[in-house]
């Protein structure tokens, strides 16, 4: 379980899916970085990532979830490749797990992620849902 400040200080980035882009070499990062790992530049700007992408790979957690996730099973955990080419790990919601497939187009949705017991904070953040046309 994360302490409240550890979750809180990334809220701006978690809530809106903001990473960073190197002004020198153009490399895009999520999560954000203070120094570019490719060219070493310290000039990075906040970069709003695309809210759309596709499922690169996934699983459906059905049994033995971690403590506190018992009520959530079955739930889908997936790596989503955003249109910017950046990967994020998240959950896929608003769909029956049987329908989830590799390559499925998805879009960002803002959801409750976890409750930290009776006294802890409620964590919110990004999840993804299928785009049905």
């Amino acid at each position, binding site marked *: 379980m994360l302490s409240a400040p550890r979750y809180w200080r990334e809220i701006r980035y978690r809530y809106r899916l903001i990473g960073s882009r190197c002004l020198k070499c153009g490399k895009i990062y999520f999560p954000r970085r203070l120094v570019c790992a490719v060219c070493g530049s310290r000039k990075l700007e906040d970069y709003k990532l695309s809210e759309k992408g596709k499922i690169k790979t996934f699983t459906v957690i059905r049994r033995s979830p971690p403590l506190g996730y018992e009520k959530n099973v079955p739930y889908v955990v997936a790596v989503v490749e955003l249109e910017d080419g950046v*990967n994020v790990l998240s959950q896929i919601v608003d769909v029956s797990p049987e329908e989830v497939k590799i390559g499925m187009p998805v879009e960002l949705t803002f959801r409750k*992620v976890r409750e930290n017991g009776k006294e802890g904070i409620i964590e919110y953040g990004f999840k993804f849902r299928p785009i049905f046309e």
Partner: protein
Amino acid sequence: MRRVAVVGVGMTKFGVLADKSLREMAFEAFKEALEDANLAPKDIESVYTAINADHFSSQVSPGASVMEYLGLNPKPNIRIEAACASSSAAIRLAWLDVASGLHDIALALGVEKMNEAGRTTAEIIQFMGTGGDITWENHYGPTFPGFYAIFAINHMHKYGTTKEQLAMVAVKNHYYGAMNPKAHFQREITLEQALKSPMISYPLQLYDCCPISDGAACAILASEDVAKKISDTPIWITGLGLGTSSVALHNREDYATIPGTVEAAKQAYKMARVEPRDVDVACVHDCFTIAEIMAYEDLGFCKKGEGGKLIEEKQTYIGGKIPVNVDGGLKAKGHPTGATGAAMTYEIVKQLRGEAGKRQVPNAEIGLTHNVGAHGTYVCVHIYRR
């Protein structure tokens, strides 16, 4: 650098060892290795203790606690952590210690008590999950079976690997586990049983997953001069590789491979001057069945994408192209994380000495261990020769 050999090995039975403490398990493995090497505790000059997580035993600096119980204070000791590859990392450090000339005889000992990490399996699974990226990924509840399921589904999608092929790995490893008196599970299973077992994290079912085990294993390493003097059957460490992969899954490019394995294997083969086809027997990291299939490919035992076919053709049984995990693997022998790499070394040493009994691979000369920490964050590949 000096040549270094394994001159003694020891391990406890793996399983739910509720009647033994962390330190008692460690001592049991140590005692067997001393007897195996025909050495006394005073002969050990330096110790590397491998324990994966402080959580599991609720003891900070558990290595120091083990060191005390071995009766080896005030000799040098370093506790090393490399997730589930901790004791392979300890062997690497012990090798460096002896090869460099700093000491002549060093002990690498791995131990883990996982069944007391929490009151329930859910608590233990929660602890284990913190081996993933806890700031950006863990709160989505991926779990360890989930990480490997994510690899499995990608492998199936890319290469057509089937759930039956995954289950065949479990059937093989239980088949050999039934012949290993030190294995956690000493019974065979059928393909039907595996395929009917409960779904844990799609596509991985219960029999695709290794158990949560307690246990200890160790190896005593000696310099060439000492090894030749004290042992008739020294097993030489001829190649060592250490690779790494990102903790966060979002920083991977390919989800059907473990990049750290490819790197570690490349280093180890080069150092030992051998090719994958020269390996006679291998212990690979099958924490989940898909992990063994990816290991076949990443270690070069077959082409990428053909791991499913390799097990389907029974090429990894004794008599096949490359016998793998004939000790039962993590799947049946068990996986007390900190002890796993040293237990692989235990098996390879026994195989190369011709002491593996019913599970003996005939005339095995070159053996390989492949030990993965977490979902690939650390990977050690070691090559041994008789």
